[in-house]
């Protein structure tokens, strides 16, 4: 076995025992440079690439639909997990506003989100129409939990403010119907 100091090429292609290409390290035509690992049928399994838009690792399974992507682009680093239809179902990223985790339903609607923004950390749960139905947050005034109705209006709030903690139940119009302490 010989060892060479350097081999320069446009593309390095790994072939299996049947001489089928299964991986390639190269500069792809009209595209980014990178490494692609392929399944036996030739469809991509993993792509590690650096291009104009950014760099990233994309994982596929069986079909050509990207299922998982870890990338860094101009907006920041991020991870997305998709379902078999290519719909993003979970994402974790660091955006300009702050870090964010979002979980989505099969229609792509965010149903749960945790993010940290200037005002503080915030957990929100949404219904299928995107209305906030539950929120737990810590802001300058103190921590609080709110539950909302189908219109996204708060109907119950449990807060620990600077002066006194309290629980308030509200009607449809936001008017207090019960509170403690009174």
């Amino acid at each position, binding site marked *: 076995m010989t060892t060479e100091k350097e081999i320069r090429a446009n593309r390095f292609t790994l072939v299996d025992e049947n001489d089928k290409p299964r991986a390639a390290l190269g500069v792809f035509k009209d595209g980014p440079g990178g490494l692609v690992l392929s399944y036996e049928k030739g469809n991509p399994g993993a792509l590690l690439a650096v291009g104009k838009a950014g760099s990233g690792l994309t994982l596929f399974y069986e079909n050509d639909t990207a299922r998982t992507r870890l990338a860094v682009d101009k907006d920041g680093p991020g991870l997305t997990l998709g379902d078999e239809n290519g719909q993003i179902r979970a994402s974790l990223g660091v955006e300009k506003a702050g870090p964010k985790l979002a979980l989505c339903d099969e229609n792509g609607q965010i149903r749960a989100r945790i993010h940290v923004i200037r005002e503080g950390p915030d957990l929100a749960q949404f219904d299928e129409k995107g209305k906030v139905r539950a929120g737990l947050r810590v802001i300058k005034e103190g921590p609080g939990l709110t539950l909302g*109705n189908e219109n996204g209006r708060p109907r119950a709030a449990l807060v620990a403010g600077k002066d006194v903690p309290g629980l308030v139940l509200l009607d449809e119009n936001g008017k207090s119907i019960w509170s*403690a302490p009174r």
Partner: protein
Amino acid sequence: MTTEERVENLERDLARAKRRNYRFMAVLGLAVGLFALGWYFTGREVKEVRASKFILVDENSKTRASLGMLGDGPALLLLDKKGKSRAWLTASKDVTALRLFDENEKFCAQLAVDKDDQSLGLWNPNGKTGTVLGVSGGAPGLTLVDENGKLRAGLIVNKYGSVLDLYDEKGKSRAGLSVNENGSGLGLRDEKEKPRAWLTVFKDGPGLSLLDKNGKPIWSAPR
């Protein structure tokens, strides 16, 4: 100097010149040969190199990376100076994954896709404490596991809605914040997972209920 002597001198000069020329040609030939050899090994630039395995070695000829077939799929393997596996990128029939290992080759991170699931998993070196962000069976979720391998927190979205659950050291759900088709609510449960306090917003309005250990309301508001 006689004519014979002059001819002899000329012949000697000619012989010396020939020897110098031979040496020059030999040196030139050697230089060209070395250049060609160097170009072949270091400057060679070809369109494509095909092989059944590529190995990258460091200055001590230790393998630091390899690209080859592993089982039924291709794999890129990166190794540290001690020869320990630190990163794998594989695409096999069962799973496509990036796996990262610590300096003791303990598995500590994985980004993976298989037939039903896709996930990012992070674990500490004991292999138990960790967190997984994934989509399993069509339901995305984030889970946190303690040092005994027990699930302690989970945020899940499923076909019914979403739920944030917190678990005790025995794995019992003790607090949950949920949103489903009936409404939204915060529930606190005892060590037997029986609800003891509910703050809810249903279609008929908000409510707070405190319950005994049998699940019977002992106090409620607003009525």
